[in-house]
């Protein structure tokens, strides 16, 4: 079975994000960029499927600027077989991303699409679900565990009340949650090997998708700051203060 893994290049999760003073966005210049952590989990899951003999080929896709090819190289170094870079310097909304992915799915015909449940930049949590709907496929979002058997994906999902299991007919879309697996670090030989793996370069126009934004971002601002309060010396003093504040 072929597995398609969409990956996004985002500000590294360890970087403290700074809002630009003109409120046009967040500072991206000279900031460390990495693969979205949930997408890393998606790549790892696909590679494990291949190691278990369940997946035959892993195709990684990234939609973004030229530098997103580095994100694809990371996926290739982890074990993906080839990459597709859909080049765009503008921010693309999740619905347009889903439309590009639909076109790629129609060409590549994967049995399973695995991607992160959300990107840690816009926190939208939409793309996987939108792609599944556009394709008329079932979905297993916020996945905690995956088993493939006889044309179905058994997916355990992290939901508000605990865990939920669903059985989804393949082809299907799965989005990853944190505890699905722990992504590996690519070894040096695999990083070297990844340099020789092919990356096809495309544009949104190649897939006939209009990527003009439909939601206008008026501004990006700093959240209200909370300041440190006081230190108390003992448990009784803590309770006194909480009582005074009306908190208990």
């Amino acid at each position, binding site marked *: 079975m072929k597995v398609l893994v969409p990956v996004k290049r985002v500000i590294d999760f360890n970087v403290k994000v700074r809002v630009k003073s003109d409120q046009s966005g967040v500072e991206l210049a000279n900031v460390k960029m990495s693969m979205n952590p949930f997408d890393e989990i998606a790549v790892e899951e696909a590679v494990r499927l291949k190691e278990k003999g369940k997946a035959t080929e892993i195709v990684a896709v990234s939609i973004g600027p030229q530098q997103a090819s580095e994100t694809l190289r990371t996926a290739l170094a982890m074990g993906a077989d080839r990459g597709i870079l859909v080049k765009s310097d503008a921010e693309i909304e999740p619905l347009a991303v889903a439309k590009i992915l639909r076109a790629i799915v129609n060409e590549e015909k994967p049995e399973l699409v695995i991607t992160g449940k959300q990107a840690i930049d816009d926190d939208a949590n939409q793309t996987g679900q939108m792609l599944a709907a556009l394709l008329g496929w079932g979905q297993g979002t916020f996945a905690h565990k995956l088993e493939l058997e006889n044309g179905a994906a058994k997916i355990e999902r992290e939901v508000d009340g605990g865990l939920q299991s669903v059985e989804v007919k393949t082809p299907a879309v799965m989005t990853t949650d944190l505890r699905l697996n722990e992504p590996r670090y690519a070894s040096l030989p695999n990083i070297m090997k990844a340099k020789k793996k092919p990356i096809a370069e495309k544009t949104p126009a190649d897939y006939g998708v209009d990527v003009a934004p439909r939601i206008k*971002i008026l501004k990006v601002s700093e959240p209200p700051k909370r300041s440190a309060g006081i230190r108390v010396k003992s*448990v009784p003093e803590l309770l006194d203060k909480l009582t005074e*504040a009306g908190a208990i």
Partner: protein
Amino acid sequence: MASLVIAEHDNRALSDATAKTVAASSSVSCPVHVLVAGQNCASVVAAAAKIKGVEKVIVAEDPLYLHMMAETMETLLLSLADKYDAILAPATSNGKNILPRVAAKLDVPQISEITKVLSPDTFERPIYAGNAIQTVEAKLPKKIITVRTTAFKAPGDGGNAQIEKISAAADPGTAKFDGEILSHSERPELTAAKIVVSGGRGLGSGENFKLIEKVADRLHAAVGASRAAVDAGYVPNDYQVGQTGKVVAPDLYLAVGISGAIQHLAGMKDSKVIAAINKDEEAPIFQVADFGLVADLFQALPELDQELAKRGR
């Protein structure tokens, strides 16, 4: 036109996330209707009809909707979408699972996790785990929105909405429910509790979480945890407070043995009062805490328990 709110429930009780979403919805488009999709859920329907400001409750009772699977909810919502210019759901695991499918099929973008309605088409929403706030303008034929419910106040009871029953929509047959393991607790629900007591990796084991639970029970509080504590297997995933877990905003958030990673702060920094107990005085949690106590939690928690008992809690 009108707006439609997807009710969050377990077929027995209506979650107050629904009423909070109604609050957001009434600033987007009126009148507000609520969709209750489920099975044998009369008590949920009755509760939804009482929310102030709801004009109509639409009820789709069918085994198909017992677990509100995204695939069947999609076709149900599409069958209703013509009558509404806005469809909203609380940003619960159900809302996040279902609504993007509807947006995609209607060919409109979704606006996720709004925290403020500035005008019927202008919204605020957090990005980068709450480290920045985006103000967006969405002049769209239909607005598909998920709502971060901690940012809105429930309108309260006093409504008397009419009830309309509708039949089930088509089942695409692509996915089926296959069981669930839900945590059962006598304690209040994490996202609705007035007080939350959370533990982190500092607890050292699942067994030691009993110290947290004892204090929580004295305060009628919910129990939460940091991602580190969940990843270490001390408590189940549904305890997790943070960007990728639950977002809470109680009157009091007591963080014990939690260092205060940015991801955790994103899930609790809107709490009215934050108190922290940690033995590391440099822990980042103290930078957001109103009251900080530098202490060993294995001494502080039993003392807290005794002191609360002394004070009649």
